[in-house]
């Protein structure tokens, strides 16, 4: 799955055109329309419930981007990404609650953005710590060490020690008004939505640019064959750890962003199943593509919501159904992962690429 073909009859005439993000006028128009709908139409037209669903999608995208980077681009299998999201969320919460911020920083709303940044860095460093085994082991063994990261971080470290800080018990709740970016207090779904959309676009752009730079090429080389990558002169360990840092950073920011929506966190939000489902998201969406991540997240959240809407009318006759819906969702998600791997191992992203190329190359598809 590489770059999309240009429409029939369009050619590049210099390198600048080839490196451009938006290669034709049509794509430019399409992207502007996309941004318009993201920033204007969706907030205008969608009601609170659907904005909440979109926020969930955004959170999943932010979390899954890091997994995509590790698995899809660098070939480092990870099943413990929920731990780094948790670290980010807790770091940000603790910074807001416990750190003696100067008064003016709280008033001007610098505290929360700064804590998001620090949370990202902390989660990145934590991720490097658990990425260190990748220097020696890979494949299934790396899955096991990242699993260990999940259990050690969330079930032991966060639950037993970090949650005790400040003597609040298990769950930390953030008083309203502390989540403040500049003059805006993030207190409604729509404001969370704007933060989400800016973060998602920012990280997608960062990631896309990383992938097409020297760093990204090194990652892809390591994914395809790490021994030949080393032979070619790539410092494998350095780039692996860099991948872990970037992925951890994204996870940390995702966690720190998500507390603005939850307003209370506990270790229960970051179970092993979160990590597993993030991997499921990128498998459904397609490995090695950024829009695959986005499609996967949309599939996971929106399709499951639609499933819920479909089940809703039945709830009068079978009241137990609504109660058990969470479990139906879980089973359906697992089944979706299995079916995608069996019937469409390249994921939704690949189908999207095929459709796009079909229209681009029409009517001369050769």
């Amino acid at each position, binding site marked *: 799955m590489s770059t999309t073909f240009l429409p029939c009859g369009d050619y590049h005439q210099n390198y600048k055109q080839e490196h451009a993000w938006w290669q034709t006028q049509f794509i430019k128009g399409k992207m502007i329309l996309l941004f318009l709908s993201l920033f204007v139409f969706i907030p205008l037209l969608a009601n609170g419930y659907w904005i909440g669903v979109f926020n969930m999608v955004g959170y999943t995208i932010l979390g899954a981007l890091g997994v995509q980077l590790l*698995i899809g681009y660098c070939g480092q*299998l990870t*099943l413990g990404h929920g731990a780094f999201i948790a670290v980010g969320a807790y770091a940000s919460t603790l910074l807001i609650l416990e750190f003696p911020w100067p008064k003016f920083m709280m008033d001007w709303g610098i505290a929360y953005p700064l804590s998001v940044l620090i949370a990202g860095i902390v989660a990145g460093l934590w991720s490097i710590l*658990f990425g260190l*085994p990748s220097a*020696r*082991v890979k*494949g*299934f*063994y790396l*899955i*096991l*060490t990242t*699993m*260990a*990261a999940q*259990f*050690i971080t969330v*079930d*032991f470290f966060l*639950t*037993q020690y970090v949650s005790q800080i400040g003597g609040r018990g298990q769950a930390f709740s953030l008083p309203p008004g502390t989540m403040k970016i500049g003059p805006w207090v993030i207190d409604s779904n729509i404001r969370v939505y704007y933060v989400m959309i800016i973060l998602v676009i920012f990280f997608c752009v960062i990631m896309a640019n990383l992938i097409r730079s020297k760093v990204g090429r090194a990652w892809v080389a390591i994914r395809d*064959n790490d*021994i*030949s990558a080393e*032979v070619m002169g790539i410092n494998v360990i350095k780039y692996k750890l860099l991948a872990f840092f970037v992925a951890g950073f994204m996870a940390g920011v995702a966690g720190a962003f998500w507390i603005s929506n939850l307003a209370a966190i506990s270790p229960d939000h970051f179970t092993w*199943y979160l990590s*597993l*489902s993030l*991997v*499921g998201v990128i*498998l459904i969406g397609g490995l090695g593509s950024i829009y695959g991540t986005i499609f996967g997240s949309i599939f996971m959240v929106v399709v499951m919501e639609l499933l819920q809407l479909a089940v809703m009318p039945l709830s009068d006759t079978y009241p137990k159904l609504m109660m*058990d819906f*969470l*479990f*139906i*969702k*879980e*089973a*359906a*998600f*697992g*089944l*979706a*992962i*299995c079916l995608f*791997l*069996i019937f469409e*191992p390249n994921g939704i992203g690949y189908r999207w690429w095929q459709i796009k190329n079909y229209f681009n190359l029409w009517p001369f598809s050769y």
Partner: protein
Amino acid sequence: MELFLMTLITGIMVGGIYALVALGWVIIYKCSGVLNLAMGEMTLIGAYISLTFYSMGVPFIFALLLSIIIGLFLGILTERLFLDKLIGEPVLSVIMVTVGLSFLFKGIVELIWGTDTKVFNPPIFSIEPINIGMVSIGEVYLWSFIAAMILLVIFVCFFKYTRWGLAMQATADDEMAALSIGVSARFVYAAAWAIAFMAAGVGGTFLGNINGLNISVGYLGLLVLPAVVLGGLNSIPGAIVGGIAIGLLQNFSGAYLDRYFPGAVKEIAPFAFMAIFLLFRPHGFWGWERIERV
């Protein structure tokens, strides 16, 4: 000293259950090369099936047998429906199908049996501990250890002396050679999953007898992963030793380290140990070391 002995014996006994489940894991890996992450949920399913039969009034032994038989069919079904289609696909897809399966199984278990803790009622094993010499251990531990050992012996005999067992060993050793002398690889894969499901069911039933049955028993089933890493992924004796070692490690850390790190150290210790162990000996004690070439 008494604490030490008691921890030692409990550890070995619980480790016997882990060894049984780990054996199922290793059989799947040896025969078909599938790294199974759904083992925890497989133990859950087996445990809940025997619990259901037991609460319907079936005697415990027969409930266990019924869960073994149903496990056989479930194993074959799982293999035919999901894993069979993926022969020859990259390792990642195969691992991730088992992740999908673990979601599926977990959802189904919660859907059918709910999330509340259920106990075997009336209790099968008396709470009165049995005194052996100077230590006393719970009856359930003793019986599960005995059952696990009996099953282990049965499995080992199955592999050594029966036609099917030999066919499975041959496939595990060299699939191409086995195919050329007429062993059906598909049959072997199905049999491996069936055995794993049966072993997991028995292990789960006993684990459920110790502290009651809920979703977290599936987490105990996950402890087979440290066990098989310790023993080596493709070694059956390794799985047994690894299982017992993990049982010991868990109980000793619970008994001695809890003072210094209060809380969940018992649950974490096997995984922390595994992460460190992997750094030094990734192929375990008895596994094959693979030499990689470009």
